[in-house]
């Protein structure tokens, strides 16, 4: 057990280390619940997920995931396609509600508030847990209106000048202000792919969220635009908690402090990014990051 407690005070979930290294994980799950290897808990979590299961109709997509998301940290979620990492990410701001057949069980708390509580309104939740999608999806409106959209629907600004300030500061923080300040009235869809994605990040920032979820934000971008976004993610960490799904292990290694490895809907291993990439404890994690499959 000793080896699972690391210096940052993260407490490991007790589990049977022998079973976890077995290739046949199915048996291990049946015996030991979620069976995740590594540090599930952190000292100062922004969000906590307990026994989360997700079903699409009859089919179960996520199996009993337990995970904490630390404040002002970047946690990356990696794993082969179809492993459920995007589905899990979409649970964190209840975006799965828009899919009729999707059903979520378990408990997800944000600052001690259960976000799946019946009385909870998703509008403020989604305002405080923003989301950036795989494909840049600016609205077919002007650049200004794209950013002002969120503050307007949430009534965040008292007057036009205040709204201007919000728009400018969001674009500045997303590193896009200098590039677009002279053409705020032009359509957001006319920007390049990388600019569009930064516009979407600015749009998410404009409603002052606490957590930003990013679902493969760079998969549609070229390496230069990707580098800009990664740099941006690193800067945003000061003020926001970020959860990012990525297919690029290099990206996970570059931007995140913690990494979670998903496989077939199960959270296999989670830990410090350095440790996951240099010294994975689980066989499946090791196979994946060494490129043996996936």
């Amino acid at each position, binding site marked *: 057990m000793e080896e699972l407690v690391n210096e940052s005070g993260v407490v490991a979930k007790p589990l049977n280390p022998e079973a976890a290294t077995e290739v046949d994980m199915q048996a291990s799950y049946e015996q030991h619940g979620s069976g995740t290897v590594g540090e599930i808990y952190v000292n100062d979590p922004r969000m906590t997920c307990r026994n989360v299961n997700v079903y699409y109709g009859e089919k179960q997509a996520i199996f009993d995931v337990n995970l904490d998301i630390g404040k002002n940290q970047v946690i990356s979620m990696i794993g082969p396609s179809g492993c459920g990492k995007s589905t899990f990410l979409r649970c964190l*701001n209840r*975006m799965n509600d*828009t899919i*009729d057949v999707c059903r979520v069980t378990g408990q997800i708390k944000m600052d001690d508030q259960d976000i799946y509580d019946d009385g909870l309104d*998703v*509008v*403020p*939740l*989604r*305002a405080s847990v*923003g*989301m950036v*999608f795989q*494909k840049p*999806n*600016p*609205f*077919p*409106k002007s650049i200004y209106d794209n950013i002002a*959209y*969120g503050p307007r*629907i*949430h009534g965040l600004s008292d007057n036009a000048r205040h709204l201007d300030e919000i728009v400018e500061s969001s674009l500045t923080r997303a590193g896009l202000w200098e590039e677009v300040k002279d053409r705020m009235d032009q359509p957001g869809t006319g920007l390049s792919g990388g600019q569009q994605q930064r516009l*979407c990040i600015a*749009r*998410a920032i404009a*409603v002052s969220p606490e957590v930003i979820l990013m679902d493969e934000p760079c998969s549609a971008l070229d390496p230069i635009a990707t580098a800009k976004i990664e740099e941006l993610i690193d800067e945003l960490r000061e003020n926001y908690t970020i959860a990012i799904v990525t297919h690029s292990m290099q990206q996970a290694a570059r931007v995140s402090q913690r990494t979670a490895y998903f496989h077939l809907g199960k959270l296999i291993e989670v830990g410090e990014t350095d440790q996951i990439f240099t010294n994975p404890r689980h066989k499946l994690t090791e196979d994946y990051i060494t490129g043996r499959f996936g």
Partner: protein
Amino acid sequence: MHSSTLIIVLLGFMTLAYYMGRKRSLNLVSGRVRDLHSLPSYYGIHTALWCGVPALILFVLWISFEGAVVTGMVVDNLPQEIQELPPERLNLVLNDIRNLAQGDIVSQAVDETMQGAADHYSSLLRISDMALFVVALSVAILGGLFAQRSINRHQRARNRVEKAINFFLVSSSSLAIFTTIGIVLSVLFESIRFFQQIPVTEFIFGLEWSPQTAIRADQVGSSGVFGAIPLFAGTFLITLIAMFVAVPIGLMSAIYMAEYAGKRFRALAKPVLEVLAGIPTVVYGFFAALTVAPFFRDMGTSLGLSVSSESALAAGVVMGIMIIPFVSSLSDDVINAVPQAMRDGSYGLGATRSETIRQVIIPAALPGIVGGVLLAVSRAIGETMIVVMAAGLSANLTANPLEAVTTVTVQIVTLLVGDQEFDSAKTLAAFALALVLFTITLALNMIALHIVRKYREQYE
């Protein structure tokens, strides 16, 4: 009777040619299909085409020129004094000869020359039929034999058959285009005849419409004024009312169907809504005339308004109901075409469903919706049956929807119903109206399709 026999025999020949061509190609390679350039059936079709197509072309040409040639020969044999008659009288004589030959009633006493000419005429026709039969079948046999002889292992029968199929497809599609052009031209020429009698400016800017022209000089009440403004005003008024009904209801039902309705409700409601589009317009017409119009009149009476029993309102409202499925299904399509990513982006920022619809989806779908509405407008402008039954015939120039108005289509119908002479301004006015109507709807359709297409490209 002769022609149909010929066609049946030709089809029989083509079938035979198919099997002969197929068999020969197989014999050439002693059954090893892979040694042939094309599959055996292509050689069969190739032979059959060679057998049938030239003979059919010959048949069509023969039929179209037969009449002229035979008539010419009959005329040549007529006495000099008849040949020198003016063309319309000569035509009359020829008509009599034809009728005589077919045993119908003739317009004058039958004399010897006429009887002789009629006999000559029918004998010529008989000869022509026989000759056609023989020539067409010889062409078919020669063509088939030629194609069958020319078959060899390397002949590209497949490519030739493909080319022939291509040609058939092209001619089918050009048929529709030529028909349209034909309609436009016929309307155009008749309109030009109309405008020779009535000045264009009077037609387009005139404020009074009263197309009754006098047949005899002493008739009364026959003013013959052709000012089209009241008609277009009536059409415009009714279309406007129809759009006031159809656009909000259609759009909102489209939004409900696309964004709110559950799968099962949608599967049920959408076809039911589209049944509205399948109701014959004549049914809408008497619904408007017998149910809606009296209802509006009674309502008006109880409110102290005088509503005409054939009001623009009744016709417009019913027409609007008819167009609802048009607007709703087109809008539904464009709303569904807005990418899910737009919705996700908006929901992800904490927008509610109606905020998303109002501020993201409708603006994104707007060009498509506008296109759909324009298509519906052109449909409403051209709609006839409802307005004939419910809108009235008097050409009032009014903006009051409670009065009876008339529309362009209604006037076209009334101008052309019954026995008409086709050289009076009254009947020719129908073509002029049709021309203007056609121009308007064509322009609307083109604008609408352009907008819809431009919108489609945006997300593909």
